[in-house]
């Protein structure tokens, strides 16, 4: 009997005992679902936790500080830096050539004054514009006076910093979107607010979405500082981010600051390493020996190592170039170990469930063999060999495992998605970044194949038992 014929006979037998087959499939499906869900949740949680540690950036990301290195501190994740030192385009270029470096991104900062919204967006509790003022708005519930004329509103224009970075590969930067979206590529009229901006308005992060859609006015505080706009620029806040790339209230594309032309040469110097163009001027108070005023410099740089193991070497290289750096790699490795233990425990629970399901399969097959003892004898009496009977029962077990595995894996991922949706609803209500469901490509394949293998293993003993039944069973009473 070939495998196809064995499948036909096994399929008929399963259909004959539909109830038992369905229950057995359900048992293995539930086990596979539990295992898939646990592994998906564990993987997602791991991604979320590590993302939190890396502030939403690459795990192997290194933040280069505009400071000289402190030799006694540089092996720490967050060293106390040495004296200030401008990050120049030349330095960025050198960093990009360090062994183990994948990309280098630059960050610039520009001083500005922000005039909060003159008009509250729909559904927002932001204050209406102050009457006769400079267009400043205020925030309800923040206490204080009433600049806008509305009780409880007191927001005033405030001086702050624009953080400018190439947002093309934002997933590699320590920037996490909390609400809304990122500014359109190279936009000069869209910005993202930061948590610092929310603080200025007296808003908690759970109310981040309230500022999305509002318009603010940027005022050039120092003529000739290099800002694209001469005096004032109205921009729309299209999102809110939690970022560690720089210290400021708004995150913008470099185009808004408008220094690409000025820094074309610097951009070209680091383009090979993926470094984005940026702004150098306005880097006040930084000691930049050897740099002419026209030479571009950056407030920070983010260096992405190829893998976590390269981070220490790259940091040493950065220190050798003359800069202090921070990287949470020690913390990530340490937390990663704990997460691995959690994953093992969750996997263990899932495998126990799968083992119980395997016992269910074995039990169902043994029961079938008890019931079909005479039929097996008849099959042998009409010429079936041991291996023919073995095949029929193994195919039955395999079929149960495969169907259970497919259903269970789909169910498990759906369960994980539902749990992630609930978690996201909670996280968003708290103003935190949500979790992105992380389903490794191996999981569906592994879930289905694993269930099939477990079923096959569970079926071996009953199948051997059936195969060894004597042909005499055909005439036993």
């Amino acid at each position, binding site marked *: 009997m070939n495998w196809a014929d064995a499948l036909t*006979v096994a399929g*008929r*037998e399963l259909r004959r005992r539909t109830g038992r087959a369905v229950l057995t499939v359900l048992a293995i499906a539930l086990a596979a679902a539990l295992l898939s869900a646990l592994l998906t949740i564990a993987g997602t949680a791991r991604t979320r936790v590590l993302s939190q540690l890396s502030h939403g950036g690459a795990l192997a990301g290194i933040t280069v500080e505009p400071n000289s290195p402190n030799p006694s501190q540089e092996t720490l994740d967050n060293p106390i830096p040495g004296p200030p030192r401008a990050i120049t385009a030349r330095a960025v270029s050198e960093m990009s050539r360090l062994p183990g470096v994948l990309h280098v991104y630059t960050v610039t900062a520009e001083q500005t004054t922000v005039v909060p919204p003159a008009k509250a967006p729909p559904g927002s509790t932001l204050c209406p514009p102050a009457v006769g003022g400079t267009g400043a708005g205020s925030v309800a519930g923040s206490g204080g006076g009433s600049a806008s004329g509305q009780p409880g509103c007191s927001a005033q224009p405030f001086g702050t910093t624009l953080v400018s970075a190439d947002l093309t590969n934002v997933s590699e930067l320590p920037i996490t979107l909390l609400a809304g979206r990122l500014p359109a590529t190279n936009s000069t009229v869209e910005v993202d607010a930061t948590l610092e901006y929310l603080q200025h308005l007296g808003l908690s992060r759970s109310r981040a979405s309230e500022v999305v859609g509002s318009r603010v006015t940027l005022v050039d505080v120092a003529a000739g500082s290099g800002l694209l706009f001469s005096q004032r620029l109205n921009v729309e806040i299209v999102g809110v981010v939690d970022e560690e790339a720089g210290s400021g209230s708004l995150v913008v594309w470099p185009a808004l600051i408008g220094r690409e032309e000025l820094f074309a040469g610097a951009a070209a110097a680091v383009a090979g390493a993926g470094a984005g163009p940026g702004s150098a001027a306005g880097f006040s108070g930084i000691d930049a020996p050897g740099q002419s005023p026209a030479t571009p410099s950056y407030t920070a740089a983010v260096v992405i190592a190829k893998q976590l193991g390269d981070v220490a070497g790259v940091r040493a290289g950065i220190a050798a170039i003359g800069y202090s750096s921070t990287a949470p790699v020690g913390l990530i490795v340490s937390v990663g170990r704990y997460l691995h233990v959690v994953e093992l425990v969750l996997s263990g629970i899932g495998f126990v469930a799968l083992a119980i399901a395997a016992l269910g399969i074995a039990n169902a097959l043994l029961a079938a063999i008890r019931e079909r003892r005479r039929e097996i004898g*008849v*099959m*042998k009496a009409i*010429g079936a*060999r041991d291996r023919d009977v073995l095949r029929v029962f193994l195919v039955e077990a395999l079929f149960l495992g495969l169907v259970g595995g497919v259903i269970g894996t789909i169910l498990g991922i759906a369960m994980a998605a539902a749990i992630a949706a609930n978690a996201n609803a909670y996280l968003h209500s708290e103003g935190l970044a949500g979790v992105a469901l992380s389903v490794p490509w191996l999981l569906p394949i592994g879930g289905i194949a694993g269930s099939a293998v477990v079923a096959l293993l569970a079926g071996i003993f009953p199948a051997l038992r059936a195969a060894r039944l004597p*042909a005499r069973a055909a*005439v036993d009473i």
Partner: protein
Amino acid sequence: MSPPCDCATCSGTGVVYRPPIAVIQIAGLSHRYRARSTGDVPVLRDVSLLIHEGDHVTLLGPSGSGKTTLLSIVGGLERPQRGAVAVAGHDLTKLTGNEMAEFRRREVGFVFQHFGLLEALTSLENVELPLMLAGVGIRPRRARAQELLGLVGLGHRMSHRPAQLSGGERQRVAIARALANRPGLLLADEPTGNLDEDSAELVGHLLESLRRELGCTLLVVTHHHALAARAERRYVIKDGRLDPAGQSHSEGTTVAGPAKETAHVAGTERAWPAGEAL
């Protein structure tokens, strides 16, 4: 190996003498069942039997006398413990497990009292099963199964499952299945035991007519006197022995026995006392 049932036809104008070909040769067969609680139970004691190609033989005897055990040994369901057993030229004492399966598949067709149909399969699939086990492709085996079901008058019941058939119909499906691989020997264990009189008569008639038409050897274990009366020879087993007090008819001729015959089994010359031809 005996010729297939449906190809042993003679042609010619004159009467041709053909010496009888021994299909079942049993000498000194003893068999016992091992039971832990009661110790060994002897079932067959020094049984010797010779059945020729095309014979229709019935085994009679009370319950527990060893009829079914003898049938099981002849059909290769059970391995003989003592004595010599040759069926269709195969020494059953020497076949390996797979060779025994091959022997059952090619040489023997079984008909059981309980029909032995696989409940999950249709009539057609049940008849196809021996062909499936023999590795026959789907088209030829389907055609053969359809032909056989037509032969037993069940061409209109092919897609029915056993539970949808009457007892007589089930047994006819079982007979069709037994003939699927064109065996030279048909073994029937109480084939009418679960049937009413009419169905039993029909099945008995079918077995006999198929035997005549296809030329195969038929060995039937039965309690059913009408079925036994159809046989050319009848043997009675009592307490594991072929009873010399029984009677046998062969085409209306009474055969006196026992007689001595000699046969070759797997290259060894042995003395084969003819069965208790009574």
